């Protein structure tokens, strides 16, 4: 076992895929630049050649469409968007085309493209350089949406995503890159087998997160533990199609549900998790109403003054739990 960072885990998944699958290739902006995607693609161009690691013009729409097209023809392309906000130029290829290619043609064709989309927030970058739009994509049937929060998943779920015969959006958050863990050897896992995972056990409240908010939930719950609050923490991992079964069992035990999401509240992933649970449990199960911690209803501010108020953090979560619940 070797201790690895989240960003190195992503790099090692690329390495594994490129080494073992000749049909894998990568395209996107910044792939020939050592600093652009925070070490996660470092030197891949030198190792695998510029034919398979393609740094592209500033053309998100065409490059994503091209990746979809190549995927229909037997390749396993990974299109990288260094920032989710830039990917919005590519919505047609993702939502109208890739998501529906299998369904529209009766399963005769499919588009096994992987779209790696990076959430890159903070640092006063403001409204167009900070968005976490995973919930949007989770709304679309036909697109799988993967959000690794642990180092192990950063590597393993990228591999599962690329090997999956469906289009997958794999979303990594730069705020997770410094996490470290000891990794088990690589074992290919079908994406269908990936379900929400319990990262910490407890019997008083179920806290659900995805991506970076899972890390927040975990850290907060550890601190709460010393105050005597026993929280159970779940990491969603795959937000579409969303399988709520493990979380359901947990809520039946804890009778309290809190969802933390890095997106906005309205029509967001937190609403989806709460609904999927509430509609499947007896009416009087919950001791407290289900709750969610999300972003305030405004674009990401540039000002450092506002940024502090904008993003959820450990302290805010602990305070929220202490204020809202009586155990």
């Amino acid at each position, binding site marked *: 076992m070797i201790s690895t960072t989240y960003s190195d885990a992503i790099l090692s998944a690329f390495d594994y895929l490129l080494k073992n699958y000749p049909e894998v290739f990568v395209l996107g*902006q*910044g792939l*020939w*630049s050592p*600093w*652009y995607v925070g070490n996660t693609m470092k030197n891949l161009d030198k190792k695998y050649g510029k034919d398979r690691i393609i*740094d*592209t*013009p*500033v*053309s*998100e*729409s*065409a490059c994503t469409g091209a990746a979809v097209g190549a995927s229909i023809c037997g390749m396993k392309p990974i299109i990288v968007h260094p920032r989710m*906000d*830039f990917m919005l*130029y590519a919505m047609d290829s993702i939502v109208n085309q890739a998501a529906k290619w299998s369904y529209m043609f009766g399963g005769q064709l499919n588009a096994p493209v992987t779209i790696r989309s990076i959430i890159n927030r903070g*640092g*006063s*970058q*403001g*409204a*167009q*350089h900070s968005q976490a739009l995973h919930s949007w994509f989770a709304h679309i049937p036909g697109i799988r949406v993967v959000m690794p929060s642990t180092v192990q998943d950063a590597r393993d779920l990228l591999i599962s995503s690329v090997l999956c015969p469906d289009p997958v959006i794999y979303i990594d958050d730069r705020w997770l890159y410094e996490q470290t863990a000891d990794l088990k050897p690589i074992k290919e896992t079908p994406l269908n087998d990936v379900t929400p995972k319990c990262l910490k056990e407890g019997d008083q409240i179920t806290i659900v997160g995805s991506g970076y908010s899972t890390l927040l939930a975990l850290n907060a719950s550890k601190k709460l533990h010393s105050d005597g609050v026993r929280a159970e923490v779940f990491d969603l991992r795959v937000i579409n199609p969303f399988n709520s079964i493990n979380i359901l069992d947990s809520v039946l035990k804890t009778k309290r549900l809190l969802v933390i999401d890095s997106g906005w509240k309205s029509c967001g992933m937190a609403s989806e998790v709460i609904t999927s649970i509430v509609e499947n449990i007896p009416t009087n199960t919950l001791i407290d109403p289900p709750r969610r911690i999300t972003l*305030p*209803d*405004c*674009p990401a*501010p*540039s*000002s*450092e*003054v*506002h940024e502090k*108020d*904008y993003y959820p953090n450990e302290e805010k979560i602990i305070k929220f739990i202490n204020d809202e619940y009586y155990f």
Partner: protein
Amino acid sequence: MISDGGKKVLEDPNYIFAKLNISQIEHSYLEDFLMSMSVIRAAEIKIAEAKKNGLIKGPVHLGVGQEAIAVGVSKNLRNTDRIFGAHRSHSHVLGVDNDLHKLFAEVLGKNTGFSSGMGGSMHLASKSKGFLGSVPIVTGTVPLAVGAGLASKLQKSGDIAISYLGDGATEEGVFHESLNFARVSNIPILFVVENNLFSSHMHMSLRQPLNTINRFAKAHEIETKLVDGNDVVEIYRTSSEFIRRMRLKPEPYLIEAITYRWFGHVDWREDIDVGVARSKKDLLNWKKRDPIKRLSDAMINKKIWTIEKQHNLDLKVDELIHANWEKALHDDFPDRKSLLDNVYKYD
């Protein structure tokens, strides 16, 4: 092909550039150009320094070396025109609104800034001067500028739209859609492409089959001119002719200005993310094509300017920078309570 009488092409760092031809331009205009370019240069160097010292939080994209373009174009504009920029737009806003205090306050995140401290360097606006927004989504404002031109056409105001964009921005599909729509609808818009040969770390030669982009204008039957982007007089002459015609008869035009940025793509270092093809030697060569020094030299040569006057101008610029910076430093940050303000205009 860009050629200059057998000399190397404009985009070549070794291109042998001619002395500026400043004939037939009013002296007061030349002095204005010199002043504006010097102020913009000094402001951005100040911003670079403050970024390095950690006083500025957000990213800053500096256009040092590229000042001539906005200065030459802006001289033709009026407050009712509609101007849009992108991520590297300090010069674009200062070109029409020389309020240094507002720029400094904005990059420092103060509530007295161009965008009340809500935007930072990448989100600037000055409505009263016609600067309707600069944002960091590449090519994001190009179709908006087309719409602004369409509005003036419908309003029969004679106002025009200016869309500043970079060479990288011509790679987005929406640029091409915008050109076609502007042409077919006869929209009064001047596309000003600042071709500094780089998009982030990537040289043009890694991204496009040619190092120039004016072919796109030709494909859409839009009149275009390729100019030396470090020659403020040529930029002024070209834009003033195009804009004069646009005000009489609504039509799109495109100027491609070849230039070079002295800093890296973002923030204060020269070397960061300079790309595969950019060398120290190229940078030094490009610095010889300094748009400010070229103008000053040409004016001194013609005896309409002196070394002493230049010295006084530099002192004056220093004072302006200092005074406005100090003022901005002492301003307040936005009120914490304003986080949810202005999400909707109607509340």
